């Protein structure tokens, strides 16, 4: 496939020094040197570390394998995006190096480092050095605070429910696509993400999309991340036409 320079999420720095996903993590995290106050409780599953998504469908489906329940106007927008995309790949918003937005941020070839701490979890995506901060000490943010709206990645809070990390996020703009095929969302979007370890090297994410302006009902999709052993962080910077 011919790579458009503007589309290219190019690795400026180097190739990632990635070890194969392996059993190295099974021994558990080494918190040596990390202050006690930052360490997650030993009772929590450890989802920290580096992850990658080996299988990445361009169009996400519901957990039942169906197309999400698009409302008529949203379906029209979705079809328009797909037609535009065929004509010009630059109509994809990530062509401008903007953050990928909710859900879609997981669907790329670059590693994700999850930093799990006592009172917060950070999702540090190598893709254009995008990070999310998940606060475990507060309830969900309020949408009506207009200093906290219209963001690409939203505002996230989370809590542990048994063995699952549940993350609530809102305060999005409507400029990103939920997947590479152009699934739309609006500013009223709320996501609920549930992260559960299936085994030491497998992390399942189930994401529920609630967006009454675009979908007739909340719907859920899921993905699987695999652990990367011997992760070396790499500086990944998106390049587009107007860069130096």
């Amino acid at each position, binding site marked *: 496939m011919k790579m458009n320079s503007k589309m290219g999420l190019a690795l*400026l*720095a*180097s190739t990632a*020094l990635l070890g194969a996903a392996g059993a190295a993590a099974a021994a558990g*995290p*080494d*918190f*040596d*040197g*990390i*202050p*006690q*106050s*930052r*360490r997650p409780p030993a009772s929590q599953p450890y989802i*920290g*570390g580096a992850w990658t998504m080996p299988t990445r469908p361009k169009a996400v489906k519901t957990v039942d394998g169906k197309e999400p329940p698009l409302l008529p106007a949203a379906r029209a927008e979705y079809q328009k995006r797909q037609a535009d995309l065929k004509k010009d790949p630059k109509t994809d918003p990530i062509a*401008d*190096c*903007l*953050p990928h937005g909710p859900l879609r941020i997981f669907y790329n070839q670059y590693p994700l*480092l999850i*930093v799990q*701490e006592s*009172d*917060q979890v*950070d999702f*540090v995506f190598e893709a254009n*050095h*995008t*990070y999310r*901060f998940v*606060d475990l000490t*507060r*309830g*969900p*943010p*309020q949408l009506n*605070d207009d*200093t*906290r709206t219209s*963001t*690409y*990645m*939203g*505002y*996230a*809070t989370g809590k542990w429910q048994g063995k699952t990390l549940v993350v609530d996020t809102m*305060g999005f703009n409507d400029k990103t696509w939920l997947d590479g095929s152009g699934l739309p969302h609006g500013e009223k979007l709320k996501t609920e993400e549930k992260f559960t370890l299936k085994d030491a090297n497998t992390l399942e994410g189930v994401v529920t999309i609630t967006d009454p302006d675009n979908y007739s009902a909340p719907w859920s999709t899921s993905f699987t991340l695999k652990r990367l052993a011997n992760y*070396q*962080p790499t*500086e990944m*910077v*998106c390049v*587009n036409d*107007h*860069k*130096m």
Partner: protein
Amino acid sequence: MDKKRYCAVLAAAGCLAAPVSIPTSSWAQATVVTPTPRGARPAPPADGLRRDGDGAPETQWEPTPPPSDPHDLNGLWEVPRPSTALRTLDNQAPPFTPEEAKDTQRHVDAEKAGEPIADASTYCFPHGVPRVTNAPFPIRFAYSPGLIVMLYEVNHNVRFVHMDGKPAPANTPFTFLGYSVGHWDGNTLVVETDHLNNRTLLDSHTSHGPKLKVTERFTKVKANLGHTDLEVMETISDPDHFTKPFSMKRNFAFRSDLERDAGWGGLTEYACEENNRNIPDAFGISTAK
């Protein structure tokens, strides 16, 4: 135009002189008023309290203290009234090599002419070190096994500080934020960074080369009002641009007052590509259009 009312409004904020009409007739509604030089530091307040760029006096900072463990740097840190300028500890110009002195002057002259020479950050690339730490935006630290992750608000810069005690591996590429190795020296986090590419400036004027090494020493120290500062001592070494290493110091304030809103731990989203109207022209000159 109601100049009287306008100045009354300004007076509440310290308007010192009445507006005078600008001689250009084409936009008579635009009037020259008393200059307020940008970047001019206000005189130290008589109450002796520090203030941030957001106007909040330090009495409002730190409603809750940082963790008592000196190795736990969790929380939101921001430098009050920061300056990106390169100045030594005794407030002198850095020990430039003659070539760098000339090149720095070229940047200064370009600014004076209203044609500032852009560097990486203006194109929305990462800021470089130590510039990213000196930018006027808050930062956080996060702890992962083997790594301390520095999360910067400005252009969502992320730095990974390797705590494994090993130097940069062979063939480490030169990047905007370089390769950082950290260790604890008592209560001080020492971060040594090299492999920095030369597409960033150290401030707005001064270049660096491949031999640049930056050592940052982060220490929680006692501050005014019983508060805690995060002091950072930065030592810059680049024999191709400076005749000897030099150091700078900045103090971050602990801004738990800015952490109150849920999400992002007080950091806001800085998606630089959203609406960058300062993209440099074909000559690398920053614009505003």
